[in-house]
């Protein structure tokens, strides 16, 4: 088995807010991330898939095909959007880096031919990232 990783980038706005808390509690827990006007990041997505090397093509997956899947399932939905306001899964879930990684896993799981999703890593910035391995 070989692991293969493809990167993609998207730039999005978000804020952190839990409707069931008071504004003061949101400020206390989320700090400046709770500013309701939102702020943004250049996110880097790394998707790692696991599979066997095809003896004819020498590929685990066709990278162009994987790039197109990432574009269709994730980048076209997230890029240059406000995650809280425009991406359906974040209407009810706070778009933290952890939740973005989980949501991207759900978007990609089962959609990559001949390979198994192994890890979704989302960098919010170079010094902060979340990994999701599909653990329930």
């Amino acid at each position, binding site marked *: 088995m070989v692991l293969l990783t493809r990167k993609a980038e998207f730039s999005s706005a978000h804020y*952190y807010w839990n409707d069931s808390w008071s504004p003061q509690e949101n400020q206390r827990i989320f700090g400046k991330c709770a500013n309701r006007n939102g702020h943004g990041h250049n996110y880097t997505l790394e998707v790692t898939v696991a599979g066997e090397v095809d003896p004819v093509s020498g590929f685990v997956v066709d990278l162009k095909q994987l790039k197109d899947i990432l574009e269709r399932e994730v980048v076209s939905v997230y890029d240059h959007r406000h995650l809280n306001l425009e991406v359906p899964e974040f209407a*009810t879930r*706070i778009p*933290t880096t952890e939740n973005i990684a989980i949501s991207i896993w759900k978007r990609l799981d089962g959609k990559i031919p001949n390979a198994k999703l192994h890890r979704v890593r989302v960098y919010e910035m170079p*010094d*902060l*990232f979340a990994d*999701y391995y599909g653990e329930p």
Partner: protein
Amino acid sequence: MSGPGEPRHPTPAAAPRAHLSRRYRLSAAHRLHSDAFTADRNRAVYGKCNNPHGHGHNYIVEVTFSGPVDPETGMVCNLGDLDAFAQTHLLDRFDATNLNTLEVFRDLVPTTENLTIEIYRIFAAFPGASLARVSIQETSNNSFAYLGPIDSQKG
């Protein structure tokens, strides 16, 4: 764009487990030298890292925590709390220091292996989440990782 049959406001299921990693940067001097070795042996083992007046690095410390994503916050651990903890217990303690002068390295060579294990011990005490891994990049060409356990002989 929700899938068919997917409720608009689903009740949070059992929280999935994720990993959160954060990097901190610190600059410090060190010299690799063991009192157990002769001068010649120190030079043979540590090479230029044994030069008497020390040298320094911009270390990049990466800490990884794992745990269920809290359905109320969407987080494995609160980043503000983690940054405050790192400021007090990592950066205030190690940044812009000479590692050889610190108590923890009084009888321990401040290799990056030993620094990694010490920093693992420090972050294992962070109350907000479960520590999975500490890695330190000493230069762009070398890095070290420790996944535990905590050395029971120390600390």
